[in-house]
């Protein structure tokens, strides 16, 4: 099983725990991840509001690169996944937009024919590898852990685009339970982490995230599991940023890090040293 590997901006430039743990664990499950030479930002955060056509071009350009490799895309990022799906859909419905994008692609000798698909790592693990094989890869079952999952909005919204999970998302929970841990519902589970406020709203960007983290803590759970680098950054890295507030100290772990722990991979190889939240509470239990 070979994919064009598209980690997304954050995993490549700063959220190394997401990248390291994905490479480490997906390889062990037999996935071949081919580097996409020539790839760039998918355009979602950078141009969606300022220049929609540039967003469409950038997403199409990345899909075209994968198409030239003859491969489907595997992305680690909920937002990139949504971006590629929305653009594929828009180009299929708007011939004029498609012509404009094609013209720009030709400058670099590329063409996009919508022959490939984009998959999020959660759907590859759940639908293709399968929960059983994930479970079979476990060396150290994570028994006794009670975890919250945070699927992230764009793993399941909008439903009309054929998202990785269903309207009542369950795949991440199944994948966590495959490792021997228990998943527990909590208020606000399907609410946004607030990551899109990270850039525009310095002052109150943490309010939405903290509401979520407080809910996890008040539910008495051991931590929260993420699957998108943006959600991870918002919940983990940013949780103690606002000065003068009570420190929430909620362990946040990325799913592939949790998977790696269960497989018996060393914490360093999973980038767990970069989690800012007290994640050692999870693996020292």
């Amino acid at each position, binding site marked *: 099983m070979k994919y064009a590997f598209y980690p997304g901006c954050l995993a*490549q430039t700063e959220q190394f725990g997401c990248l390291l743990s994905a490479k480490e664990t997906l390889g062990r499950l037999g996935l071949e991840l081919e580097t996409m030479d020539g790839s760039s930002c998918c355009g979602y955060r*950078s141009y969606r509001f300022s220049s929609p056509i540039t967003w469409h071009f950038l997403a199409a350009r990345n899909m075209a690169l994968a198409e030239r490799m003859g491969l489907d895309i595997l992305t680690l990022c909920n937002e990139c996944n949504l971006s590629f799906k929305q653009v594929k859909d828009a180009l299929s419905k708007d011939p004029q937009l498609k012509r*404009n994008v094609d013209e720009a692609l030709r400058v670099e000798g590329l063409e996009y024919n919508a022959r490939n698909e984009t998959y999020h790592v959660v759907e590859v693990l759940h639908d293709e590898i399968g929960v059983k094989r994930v479970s079979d890869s476990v060396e150290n079952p994570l028994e006794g852990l009670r975890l919250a999952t945070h699927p992230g909005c764009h793993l399941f*919204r909008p439903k009309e685009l054929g998202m990785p999970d269903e309207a009542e998302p369950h795949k991440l929970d199944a994948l966590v339970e495959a490792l021997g841990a228990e998943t527990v519902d909590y208020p606000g589970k399907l609410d*946004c982490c607030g990551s899109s406020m990270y850039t525009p*709203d310095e002052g109150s960007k943490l309010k939405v995230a903290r509401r979520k983290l407080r809910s996890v803590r008040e539910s008495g759970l051991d931590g929260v599991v993420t699957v998108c680098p943006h959600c991870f950054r918002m919940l983990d890295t940013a949780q103690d940023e606002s000065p003068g507030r009570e420190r929430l100290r909620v362990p946040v772990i990325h799913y592939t890090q949790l998977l790696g722990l269960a497989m018996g991979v060393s914490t360093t190889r999973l980038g767990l040293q970069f989690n800012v939240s007290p994640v050692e509470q999870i693996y020292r239990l």
Partner: protein
Amino acid sequence: MRTQAGELVSLQVRRKRVKCLSPEINETEVRFISRMLTRLVGEMNATVCEQCGKCSSACPVSKMIEGFNPRRLIAKVSLGKIDELLRGDAIWTCTACLKCRERCPEDVSPYDVILILRNLAYRAGYGYPAGYDDFIEGVIGRGFISEPQAVRTRDGWKVSRGDLGLPEVSGPGDMAQFSAVVKGIIKAGRQG
């Protein structure tokens, strides 16, 4: 309205007045687009949106941030208060989680309306949050919204991609060509 934690905060968007030497659309066009939007949403409101508030009660942002309320935002559009919305901070506070669109019993989507308003605000030179420039310029300059950084571990040690045995980020290849194409399509989008 207070949250259970009693800490509803006000919007604090750091706005940047874009030094738009020549705004992409002029005031007459903004007025025209505003009227169109108002008529469209107004009609939608009269026949469709009952201001039931499911969008606002679902919205994770309006629970925490005073001044952001998707139901009221739709009402403002239908009352023609577009200029107020374009000048204000609310349209930049939506996290695009799509919950409002999912919950709306009548298929009105505050999320889509907000995206249109953001684009209009940007193109008409109303200004946008400062942080986005890093993304816009970052992609032209290096292909990604941010540069590969050395990050610190929980214990405070600084580590780069190289220290972790990761190869350099494989960027867009011929950077000069890539930048030229991106700049070209941004320009084409303005004229289009």
